[in-house]
């Protein structure tokens, strides 16, 4: 299993450009997530999905959009890039909820995005 894969690894965007960050998992996990990590800060949840066709906002959703048409893929779309979106983006997945507690999340290697 490759686990959670993300492309691209690095990207530089100009202000106002748009792009899609790709995320794929091969573990048949129901839940998928997008986080961003700013320098010196913890990870913050942008959007998450509990299954194909179902998405919801996290802590910092403004400026982003997501879709979940398959179990495996969860792309993150930036429509009008701004310097404030310069960050490292991590995708994660977790299996179907089995207990009363949060399940372990498995992270991809991240995409480092710079907006100039």
């Amino acid at each position: 299993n490759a686990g959670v894969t993300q492309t691209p690894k690095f990207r530089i965007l100009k202000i106002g450009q748009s792009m899609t960050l790709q995320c794929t998992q091969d573990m048949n996990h129901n839940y998928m997530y997008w986080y961003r990590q700013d320098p010196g800060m913890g990870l913050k949840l942008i959007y998450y999905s509990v299954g194909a066709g179902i998405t919801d906002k996290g802590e910092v959703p403004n400026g982003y959009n997501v879709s979940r048409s398959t179990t495996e893929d969860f792309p993150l779309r930036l429509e009008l890039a701004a310097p404030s979106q310069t960050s490292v983006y991590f995708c994660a997945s977790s299996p179907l909820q089995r207990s009363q507690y949060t399940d372990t999340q498995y992270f991809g290697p991240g995409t480092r995005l710079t907006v100039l």
Partner: protein
Amino acid sequence: DQQVKQNSPSLSVQEGRISILNCDYTNSMFDYFLWYKKYPAEGPTFLISISSIKDKNEDGRFTVFLNKSAKHLSLHIVPSQPGDSAVYFCAASVGATNKLIFGTGTLLAVQP
């Protein structure tokens, strides 16, 4: 409003000694706590967790302690090894929401 706080940005210990990483939280609704380890240019990897009904959980060299009255948890690594050098994130969640709130991380350096 930082609900999960790691007040030590960095920690340096000698190989073979104990590493203690601390984490404080403010939301009394949190009932599950996790520690993730992160190497440069990689995603975080799960290390150990504890539910609020316990005060201690061990896994090999790693032990997590939870003090609910103080809203404090700590990760003990004994003995520390150079390969443990990484950033350690504390995270917390409420129920089965699967929404994690992360601390800012502590960079651990284990000196040979």
